[in-house]
């Protein structure tokens, strides 16, 4: 069963977001996403100072047999990249909510964070998807 920490917000594209004390937003991919991807071998992340748009692709994650888009949970500017994780992408699989964080964004609209899925909503979303998969 994938873990869904209670202190984060989520997207339907399986990213997580954490609102920091300074108003910035740290993002990564969820435990469910890293399970689906398999062993991550490469991270294609945006440059610091890049502008990103909420809901739009901002990078890619390559696992041993797949490339998947990364989506921006909120609109803003990239202020920090997790260079250690970029150089050791296995951290994303091993600790997706800790050492596997990917980047920090300076959001242009703080209210956008409140529109992300709550832990309960994301957990329900995962259940609904699993249910559709069984029916299909």
């Amino acid at each position, binding site marked *: 069963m994938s873990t869904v920490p209670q202190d984060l917000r989520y997207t339907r*594209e399986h990213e997580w977001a954490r609102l920091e004390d300074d108003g910035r937003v740290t993002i990564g991919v969820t435990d469910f996403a890293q*399970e*689906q*991807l*398999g062993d*991550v*071998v*490469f991270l*294609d992340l945006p440059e610091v100072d890049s502008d990103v748009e909420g809901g739009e692709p901002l990078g*890619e994650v*390559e*696992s*041993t*047999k*797949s*490339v*998947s*888009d990364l989506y921006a949970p909120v609109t803003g500017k990239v202020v920090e990249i997790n260079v250690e994780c*970029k*150089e*050791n*992408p296995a951290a994303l699989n091993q600790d997706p909510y800790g050492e596997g964080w990917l980047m920090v964004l300076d959001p242009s609209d703080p209210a956008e964070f409140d529109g992300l899925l709550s832990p309960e909503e994301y957990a329900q979303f995962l259940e609904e*998807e*699993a249910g*559709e*998969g069984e029916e*299909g």
Partner: protein
Amino acid sequence: MSIDIALLERAARAEITRPVLRFYRWDGPSLSLGAHQRLDEQVAARCAELGVQVVKRPTGGAAVLHGKDLTYSVVAPHGTMGVLEAYREVAGGLIAGLALLGIEARIGTRHEGPGVLHAPQLGARAACFAVTLGADLQVGGAKICGSAQLRRRGWFLQHGSIPIGDDRAFTNRILDHPDPIGATCLEHLRPGTSEEELCVCLRRGFESRWGEAEEVSVESLLVGLSIPA
């Protein structure tokens, strides 16, 4: 391959709602690199010298030499299927199709040859058919089909190469691999198999798993789009 991406993007926007299976060939020898694979300068020089076009795939994985192969592509919803599960779903169709040719393929066991993929450089000279991962197809321990996947908004594009003629020596020459690549081809397994025969059997193999297919033109799926060459 730009058509593959266009189909995936249409599906991601819900403008295509059913899985799409496509077969195509290449105009002359072409080297496709994985999405994040670097083009080695010496490889580039050899390709230029030998008239080999170099393209970048939108999907992952390592280098594949095209020209004597059949390329298939599938665009389908992945739902809650993980990457390997989606590969196995497509493998079912491929295995069923190859079985109609009397070829017994199976999902490969992991084997790492020269040029193993590793982050972050992603093995600049890594050759797809030198490595078997747990989603590729083998016949008698030799790789017969290498595939790669891109996932986008609930859909995935998977395309792959099935060698018809033996291009291993040419691949080795371009990528400067010292050892023979552990792959096979249809010409060795079933001499005289035509590309058309392979397409027909693969289609039937997919239909046995996914239901009857409706044949449509690619143009009809991409109306209104300008596809880059």
